[in-house]
Each structure stands twice: as C-alpha cells, then as structure tokens.
C-alpha cells in the first residue's frame, strides 16, 4: 500500500521513467557502436589489422573481450561504467572519466551562457513582437527568428569568427583555452562568440513559442481582470501575461537543450573550445571506441537529467502542477 502510494507519486514516477530512459540509452549506444563496420582491433591497427595471424587476432579479441557474447560484453561494460570506469583513450592513456571531468564543465558553462543569450533574445523579441502583432515590429522579429532557425551554426560561427579575426583583429579563441577559474576574463571572451552562435539558434524557437504563448495569454480572462483593477501595462505584461506564458516557454527551452548539446559539437570545433562535443568528435576521428562510447553516454545522461530538471521546474512555475 505504501509502496503503491510512493510509486503513484508523479515525482517518483518521473524518476523511474528517467531511469528507464537511461537504460535504453546505454543499450542504444552499445549496439550502435557494434553495428558500425569494423571493431576495436581494426580501429586501433588500421589496415595492418589484415596482416594479423588468426592466433594474434584471437589473442587481441580476448584482450578486448570481443570473444565474449554481446550480452556479456554489455554487462561487463555497464558494470564498469556504473563503478565509474569509463575506459581510457588508447592514444593518450588518459581515462575518459578524467577527460570528461575537464570537458563537461566547459560545455555546461557554454550551455548556460547560450541559454541566457537565447532566453534574453528570444523572450525579448517575442514580447516586442506580441505587443503589436502584425506590425512592422512583429514582422522584423519574426524574420530574425526565421533567420535563426534557417542559418546553420557552422555557417554563422565560421562567418562570425572570420569577420572578427579578419576585420577587427579580434580572435581570443586563437589563444590556449583558459578555464573559467584560471582566467575568467579571457575565458568569457573565448566563450562569447560560441555562446552568441548557439544562443541565436536557441532564440529562434524560443521566440516563436513565446510569441504565440504571449498572444494567447493576453486574451485570457484573468488578464482582463488585472486590467480591470487598473494594473499598468508593464506590470500587466510581466506579472500576468509573461507569467502565464512561462510554461510553454520553459517546455521549449528544455527541449532545445538537446540542440544545445548537439550544436556544441560543431561550435566547439569551430571556436576550439575543449568541451565534451569536441571530445566526441576527436574520439570519432581517432577511432577511440571507449572515448566515443562513454562520452556519448555522458551526453545522453546529461540530456535526460536536464529534461528531468525541466519537469521539476514545472512544479515551481505552475502551482497547479505542484498540487498533484
């Protein structure tokens, strides 16, 4: 009875769902890497793998555990992941855990900065657009949003980098990357352009969602009630209209976080930011099985956790959800 009560609680249910998703992600990552032609041995040795004698090959397969059935391989891998062993890079010998401990905070910093840029731009433009729908101002806002949706990050990023470096002689990203704690001033300069590029892409869908949510909320009875008590326009827009539109905006922002992690792969590469996206990319280029497998898993886990956090935020934003 108590168990059923606990399991019935939406929060607990949501946590269980997240766990299931994570398990699914682990399986998917594992299967995908096995489904790609070639294996760890060909990846490591390249064309020379063809020169291996069957005995040598068998020895290597035993070393990597490739002679075991797939299910056993999966359990072995999952077991080591759960105990904090994410494998190591063949080339540098560094453990993936250590690499991730360096790169994940950088990507998270970039993500947070991009979110700030995206929300300020997106919600700001939406409020301007929605305040006078179908005006020139609205059309301009929507055109910029469309541009944000259509221009890919690699193009905008390269263009921004080229223009800043060529014409302004400004390219902080050419220098050795500075961690936030070591050199905050340089770090923020290095983060500025990538955050703008990612934030611009993020602002577009946020703007479109926020605009329609604001327009809809404006027509609701409670907004009329607020006007009926004499609430002045600015207070009305912020405390009633924007507050009422916050749930869809939050939903869109949470969904876009996935885009942020994916977009980070490209943007980090362009701006030489040693984040987790770059770690995957280098892993793929250098055919580092352990690095790719574990890093993709880390990204997936981050995504699931962010979605979970979004769901928890609903409870803060909407008192009606809090009651359930």
């Amino acid at each position: 009875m108590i168990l059923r009560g606990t399991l019935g609680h939406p929060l607990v249910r949501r946590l269980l769902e997240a766990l299931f998703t994570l398990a699914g992600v682990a399986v998917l990552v594992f299967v995908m890497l096995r489904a790609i032609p070639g294996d760890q041995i060909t990846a490591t040795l390249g064309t020379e793998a063809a020169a291996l004698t069957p005995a040598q090959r068998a020895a290597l397969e035993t070393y990597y555990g490739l002679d075991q059935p797939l299910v056993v391989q999966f359990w072995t891998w999952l077991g080591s992941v759960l105990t904090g062993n994410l494998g190591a890079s063949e080339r540098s010998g560094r453990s993936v855990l250590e690499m991730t401990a360096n790169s994940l905070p950088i990507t998270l910093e970039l993500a947070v900065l991009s979110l700030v840029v995206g929300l300020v731009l997106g919600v700001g433009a939406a409020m301007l657009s929605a305040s006078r729908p179908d005006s020139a101002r609205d059309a301009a806002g929507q055109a910029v949003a469309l541009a944000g949706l259509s221009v890919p990050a690699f193009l905008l990023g390269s263009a921004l980098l080229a223009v800043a470096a060529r014409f302004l002689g400004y390219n902080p990203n050419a220098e050795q990357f500075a961690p936030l704690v070591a050199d905050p001033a340089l770090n923020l300069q290095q983060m500025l352009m990538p955050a703008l590029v990612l934030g611009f892409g993020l602002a577009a869908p946020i703007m479109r969602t926020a605009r329609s949510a604001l327009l809809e909320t404006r027509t609701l009875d409670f907004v009329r009630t607020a006007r009926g008590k004499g609430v002045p326009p600015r207070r009305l827009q912020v405390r009633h209209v924007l507050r009422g539109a916050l749930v869809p905006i939050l939903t869109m922002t949470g969904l876009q976080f996935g885009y942020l992690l994916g977009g980070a792969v490209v943007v980090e590469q362009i701006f030489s930011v040693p984040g987790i996206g770059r770690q995957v990319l280098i892993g793929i280029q250098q055919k580092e099985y352990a690095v790719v497998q574990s890093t993709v898993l880390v990204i997936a886990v981050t995504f699931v956790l962010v979605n979970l956090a979004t769901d928890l935020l609903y409870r803060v934003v909407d008192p009606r959800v809090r009651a359930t």
Partner: protein
Amino acid sequence: MNSPVLEVHDLAVAAGRKHPVEIVHGIDLTLRAGETVGVVGESGSGKSVTMLALMRLLGEPLHISRGHVRFRGQDLAALREPEMRSLRGREIAMVYQDPMTSLNPFMRVGDQVTEALLVHGVDEGKATARCLELFARVGIPDPARTVRAYPHEFSGGMRQRVVIAMALALRPALLIADEPTTALDVTIQQQILGLVAELQQEMGMATIWVTHDLGVVARLVERVVVMYGGHVVEDAPVAQLFAAPQHPYTERLLASLPNPTGERAPLAQIPGRPPLPSEHVEGCAFRPRCPQARDVCAMPPPLVDRAAGRAACWVPPHEWSA
C-alpha cells in the same frame, strides 16, 4: 433626487475597423449614486459587451464606435488610457461571470487582492492589512492562512468571494456585477448574491446587476433595463416592469417564468431566436418574433417615456392582442 453617477448616452460598440459590424446600437442608461439597476436580456443581447465598454475593457476587434459615458462629469469614452486606468478598480470595479477563469492561476489569491490596492498607490503594509480585512468581510475563513492559497485550491464560490474582495478593495462608486453567479451552484448563488447586496448597501455604491435571471432582478434592484439584440427595449422601475410590462419582449420574458403558485403548466417560450450581430433587422429587432408586430414596426422604434419608465415599442399595451 441626487445627481447621476453614470450617464450613458447613445453608446454603440462595433467589431472590426475596416468593415465595422455594430453589435450594440446606441444604449442609454442612467444611474444615480447608490442606485441598483438590473440589466436583463438573453445571451447575445449585448449586456456583457456594454459593461466591458463602460470599463473600456473591450478586447480586439471590439471598440466603442460612438456615444458618451459620463461618469462623475468625465466622458469615459473619450478619456485617455492612463486616466481610464486610474479609474478602473478605484472608482469603477467589476465582478466577472466565471470565477474559474477570472483569477490568475499563477498568483496567490491574497497577492491578487493586494495588487488592486498597490497599483493605486496604497503602500504595501496597508494593502496587506486591508486584504486580510476584506477576506474576513467577504466570508473567506482563516484569512491569515488562505491569502497564501492559489486559486485552484479554492472552490468556485470562494474564488468569486476573492473577486468580490478585489472589486471592493477601494470602495468604488460604481460596481458592475456581470452575471456573478451563473457559473456557481444554486446554493452558492444565493450566498454570493446576498453578500454583494449586503456590501452594496454598506458601501452605498451604485450597482449594475447584469443577469438573465429575472428572479434575481426582482429581489435586488430598483430599476430594470431590458436589452434585446443590442438595443435597450425597456427601462422601468422593477414593480412596474413585473406588473405592467410596456414592451412585448418584456411581456414574453415574464410569461416564460415558471408559475410562482406551483401550478404545473408548460413553460411559455418565445419562438425563434435573437438576431445575430451580422443580421440586420429592418426596424424593431424583436419584430420577427413579436406577437404584436405591425407594419409600423419596420421603422426603428425610439425609446420613449411610457408609464413610470421608458419603452421602445410602437404599439402601446392597450392595443396588444392577447
């Protein structure tokens, strides 16, 4: 008799700017200080739209297309928005139809009442104290705790009490109650009606009751304005309206009430339906449904003095056929 608080003259509301369609066609309405008037009519007769026009709260595409709304010497229809805003909630307040949607679901009920005071310059401490006082006055139990609740934690009746507290926070000179009980259970309806009537007497404000329930009107108001198809068709003291209606529509409305003696008889109906705003009826809007219609009714009837009130009908009651 004291001077009028509100004088509405020829107020019209239209939808759309390029090809406006008139929805309310030149309303006349006068309210003296402390007077209680009922505005009665079927759904779609333009009652609510007229009330929102008085508050200048019409949403797009509706707008005031002509007429004056004189309130304490100022013409509300011509007032600039910031000046109008300073009157809303302070001098003129409204209780809305549906308490389930008229409160902000994201804001604590106490904050919503306090806000009505804050935006008119009452300082925070005083506003909080006044809010507790108002909660107690409108019969919400345990104000110190309940001010912190959200609307969804309240029943419909309790929410309407919050809306009433909000409307009366600054003791307005005019209260517009737009069918405040239609969305509530019957038992709660009586309590809410009683509460508003009591507060109205206590504060001495002029009140407009908008309703389609003639029973409400009979007990609460001194005078009744009957609307049909965006026109005022009759305006009379309540006793006269019930005893000797001067407009066939009023007469038919009264005939459709259940018999008070409890005698079981089929309820009378008015055949047909009210005109849509897009339908233009030549002359009297009630003509297509009117049992007394004559040729003269093809001309729009003016609202003229009739007995103790006024009516807009070409055919006086003594010429009506049975």
